């Protein structure tokens, strides 16, 4: 056993935890923080309860993985997109515009936005819906080359981007 050579005490865990948190600042991943946090908790647990080293390690690893998933599941959704810059042309999907030329089966239509999006305020457009008329509000569902695919806005629906 490691204990015969090296006696692991609670403060070792504490130091390991702080060191891992320090390392987090210098390496570009975002993983050491969870290992560090878990190590600090293990330090507290092993200080309160006498448990074997194997269990301490298992608790540490399990807690780390749990923290990671918890972060991704609960904390990550809280980080909103503060800018749409750099997200590419896909930001136009979901925008609402107004039809100025009716898209028909043989001709492309034209949709106008109140502010320029992805470099233009007027886009050529197509639609699967035959009944769109000039002046209708439409939602962009896809972008094909330099043309948009538009549809009538459905209430309370988020446009689904087909992959």
């Amino acid at each position, binding site marked *: *056993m*490691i204990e015969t050579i090296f006696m692991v005490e609670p403060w070792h865990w504490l130091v390991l935890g702080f060191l891992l948190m320090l390392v987090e600042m210098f390496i*570009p*991943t*975002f*993983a050491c923080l*969870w*290992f560090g946090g878990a190590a600090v908790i293990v330090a507290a647990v092993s200080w309160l309860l006498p448990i074997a*080293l*194997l269990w301490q*390690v298992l608790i540490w*690893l399990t807690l*780390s*993985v749990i923290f*990671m*998933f918890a*972060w*991704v599941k609960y904390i*990550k959704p809280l*980080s909103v997109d503060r*800018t749409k*810059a*750099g*997200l*590419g*042309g*896909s930001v136009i999907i979901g925008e609402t515009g107004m039809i100025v030329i009716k898209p028909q089966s043989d001709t492309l239509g034209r949709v106008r936005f109140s502010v320029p999006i*992805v*470099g*233009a305020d007027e886009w*050529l457009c197509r639609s699967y819906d035959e009944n769109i008329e000039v002046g209708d509000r439409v939602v962009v569902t896809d*972008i*094909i*080359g*330099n*043309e948009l695919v538009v549809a009538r806005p459905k209430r309370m629906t988020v446009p689904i981007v087909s*992959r």
Partner: protein
Amino acid sequence: MSSINIVMLVLIALIVFTVLKGVRIVPQGYKWIVQRLGKYSQTLEPGLNLIIPFVDTVAYKVTTKDIVLDIPSQEVITRDNVVIVANAVAYINIVRPDKAVYGIEDYAYGIRNLVQTSLRSIIGEMDLDSALSSRDEIKAKLKLAISEDISDWGITLKTVEIQDINPSATMQASMEEQAAAERLRRATVTRADGQKQAAILQADGRLEASRRDAEAQVVLAKGSEESIRLITAAMGTEEMPIVYLLGEQYIKAIRQLAESDNAKMVVLPADILSTIKGMVGDKLKV
């Protein structure tokens, strides 16, 4: 029991590396394409992402910022058979990274070539003068022309800017010659116009001057007539006034002759009356 320790250490290593490789942070402005065992599985958006390290690999890191493509210059023949050299710059944006990496081997090369060939065909339908002056029209046609081609690659062409449209060297020389000839023609016409105006004005001047000269002579003659009439009235005879006037003129002339500063020898007739008689004729009965 060292075996337990070894297992423990390996387990630690496994989990640590799994977590380290499974957490992926994508910077803003990029999207990463993840393949699961060689097949496309997902596109990672900017921010924190988790992937399964054993089966997932980040195959491509695609920028979603605008890309500036320099379209190399090329020789284009217009509809009126003039060779011009045109180059452009294209701004593209990757809308669907998966289509861009799987739809075409090298999208930059593909779009560059598309823009080149489309530009050639669009300018080929135009006359030289309209090609030189209607850049916006060329731009709109270009966007429309390659829109369908790039739709499969998940790329949108934001704009194409024609940088230079230059006629070839010989064409440029002849255009300059044409412009120079035109200016020369205008200069010649202007000069001729000026000369014509000057001639007209000079002739006008002469006309006016002779008109006034004639008027002056009339006035002088009238003055002489008046003076003769006065002298006649004073002298009462017919011949004497003429003799008198001529004598006066004669003496005036001799005085002027004497005052002029050239070498002179003035010969005066002794008998002024008979001299005048000789000048006037024998009608005088002096």
